[in-house]
């Protein structure tokens, strides 16, 4: 990082804990508003549960609508957190320090939002237990292990538990700081219980660092598998045009990284604006994440191009007809154009300019555009294929999401924002010990008239170099 503000431990504690130990003025109105939206969404869900799925736009042949598109979208967003955290930890990138926890927490809440969408979608959520939980509830019927719908909960459940535990373990040192800084006795006691007695011995710090590396290495394969498995909900089916493509697994993952990293960039911008964290999240951080986004977006575009090329490669008339529906026919044609423009055509050329990459405002709005585009991408994968699913034209249908579906989808967005705000009220979104470690390890190297930022590197232990090979 060329830009840097070197701060003392005391200053870091004050800056990053002030919004945890006190309540910012805007916090209560924001939480109230988001809470209201969540309650409205839940109300819509209970209405749907009472009256049945007929109140939605779902009907034969479009059995899956915006609920499933939304599910895939939130699974996608959840991927960035662990990716940013794990890959940047493993590559020892210094610029990750202020960003990792917010990204990890966003993962957890996105996963919960993703999980509750299909639960709502099934109409009678308690019945999901019968076909997922490995128990003979009635008549000797067990879950069908060969179904992707049984792979899904195993994968998403594993990822949710892994991410939550990852966040908790890496929070321990910061909970210890809160335990020491909290004034009210009851609050102090709660933090003390949560901190499990963490004191900061060399053993505990070594295990914290190992935890970061080992858990990153363990969670990364899970991260790859989760969205692959979600993509196989579509790809393994031969009945729906446009779904049976082997590229779905990496295509969904790279799309997830694209939308997720964009969401992290949005989070960074909001942290700077709402919490005044411009001393910690610098234009250099936005620059670094924008460069990552250029690579990810270009790779995603290549996968998208491959998916289309192979659809046409099949020379199958139904497949080609579907692509014409997706790209050229109302209402999917305009949506397709918006999707391409917002997810690639506008943001990526803009990110090539340094001024745009280093501007908080530009990064926020370009990443908002990306996420609009990526939500539409999931919509365009799910619905058009189903509209022409069967070969009997009398079974072709249309799909219009109802107000109930829209309210529930909006509820998921409000849920994630609410979750993040509540988390940020109780625990710091920027890892204090990680930022302090960066300050302690920072050095400067003079090269002629120039000063180069440097950092202490933990490479191999020194006895490895002394050993003869």
């Amino acid at each position, binding site marked *: 990082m060329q830009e840097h503000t070197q701060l*003392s*431990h005391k200053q870091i504690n004050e800056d990053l804990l002030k919004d945890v130990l006190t309540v910012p003025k805007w916090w209560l109105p924001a939480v109230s508003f988001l809470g209201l939206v969540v309650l409205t969404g839940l109300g819509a869900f209970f209405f749907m549960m009472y009256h049945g799925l007929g109140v939605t736009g779902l009907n034969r042949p479009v059995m899956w609508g915006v609920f499933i598109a939304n599910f895939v979208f939130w699974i996608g967003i959840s991927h960035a957190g662990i990716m940013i955290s794990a890959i940047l930890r493993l590559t020892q990138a210094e610029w990750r320090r202020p960003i990792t926890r917010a990204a990890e927490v966003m993962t957890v809440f996105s996963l919960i939002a993703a999980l509750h969408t299909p639960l709502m979608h099934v109409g009678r959520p308690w019945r999901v237990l019968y076909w997922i939980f490995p128990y003979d509830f009635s008549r000797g019927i067990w879950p069908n*292990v060969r179904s992707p719908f049984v792979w899904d909960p*195993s994968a998403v459940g594993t990822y949710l538990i*892994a991410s939550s535990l990852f966040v908790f373990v890496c929070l321990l040192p910061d909970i210890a700081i809160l335990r020491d800084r909290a004034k009210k006795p009851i609050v102090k006691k709660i933090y003390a219980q949560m901190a*499990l007695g963490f004191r900061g*011995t060399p053993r505990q710090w070594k*295990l*914290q660092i190992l935890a970061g590396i080992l858990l990153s290495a363990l969670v990364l394969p899970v991260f790859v598998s989760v969205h692959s498995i979600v993509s196989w909900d579509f790809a393994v089916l031969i009945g729906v045009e446009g779904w049976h493509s082997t590229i779905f697994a990496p295509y969904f993952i790279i799309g997830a990284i694209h939308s997720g990293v964009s969401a992290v960039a949005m989070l960074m911008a909001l942290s700077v604006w709402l919490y005044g964290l411009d001393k910690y999240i610098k234009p250099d951080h936005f620059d670094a994440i924008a460069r990552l986004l250029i690579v990810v977006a270009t790779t995603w575009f290549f996968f998208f191009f491959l998916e289309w090329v192979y659809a046409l490669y099949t020379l199958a008339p139904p497949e080609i007809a579907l692509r014409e529906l997706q790209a050229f026919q109302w209402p999917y044609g305009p949506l397709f154009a918006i999707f391409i423009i917002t997810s690639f055509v506008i943001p990526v050329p803009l990110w090539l300019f340094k001024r745009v990459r280093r501007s908080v405002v530009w990064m926020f709005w370009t990443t908002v555009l990306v996420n609009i585009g990526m939500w539409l991408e999931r919509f365009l994968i799910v619905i058009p294929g189903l509209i022409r699913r069967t070969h009997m034209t009398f079974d072709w249908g249309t799909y219009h999401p109802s107000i109930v579906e829209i309210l529930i989808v909006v509820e998921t967005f409000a849920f994630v924002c609410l979750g993040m705000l509540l988390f940020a009220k109780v625990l710091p979104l920027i890892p204090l010990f990680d930022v302090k*470690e960066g300050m302690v390890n920072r050095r400067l190297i003079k090269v002629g008239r120039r000063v180069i930022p440097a950092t202490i590197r933990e490479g191999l232990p020194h006895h490895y170099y002394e050993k003869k090979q």
Partner: protein
Amino acid sequence: MAKRSVLGLYSEEDSAADALDNLREAGFEEGDYEILTGVPYPEGTFGEAEPEHKLYRWPLIGAACGFTIALLITAGTELAYPLITGGKPILSIPAMAIIMYEGSMLGAIIFTIIGIIFESRLPRIFMGAYSEKITEGHIGVTVTTEETRTDIAETALNKAGTDGEIIRGWE
């Protein structure tokens, strides 16, 4: 006899390292004293011994447990309800492999977390001698010893130049 802990606070890393030297000279063993810091320092900064741990066993044991449980669940449920779906065999290895993989990873991760907490010697019921100044940048050196030796410990800590504060606590 009950053990007591004594904590000295230092503002410089070298002073804390000197305190460890003084404690060794006074006859305290490696396991009797500990450094407390609010931020991770490179290993060996204070001349302390490299902490040994067996963390790497935990993910392996967890993966083995998770793999076994997932295998039993998948194979067990498939054999308990032998309905052929989609023309696939009853024991379909690709499908089972996915769930077994997730089970192994879940087992590995859960056991790793337990291992991290266990190897960190947590949860710790009593904090012993501890100061809130540690999370504000001070470096603490804490000695856990019999009550009769606490004065020796205090002398050794003071010799390195504490910030004028010695805290005593129960272990």
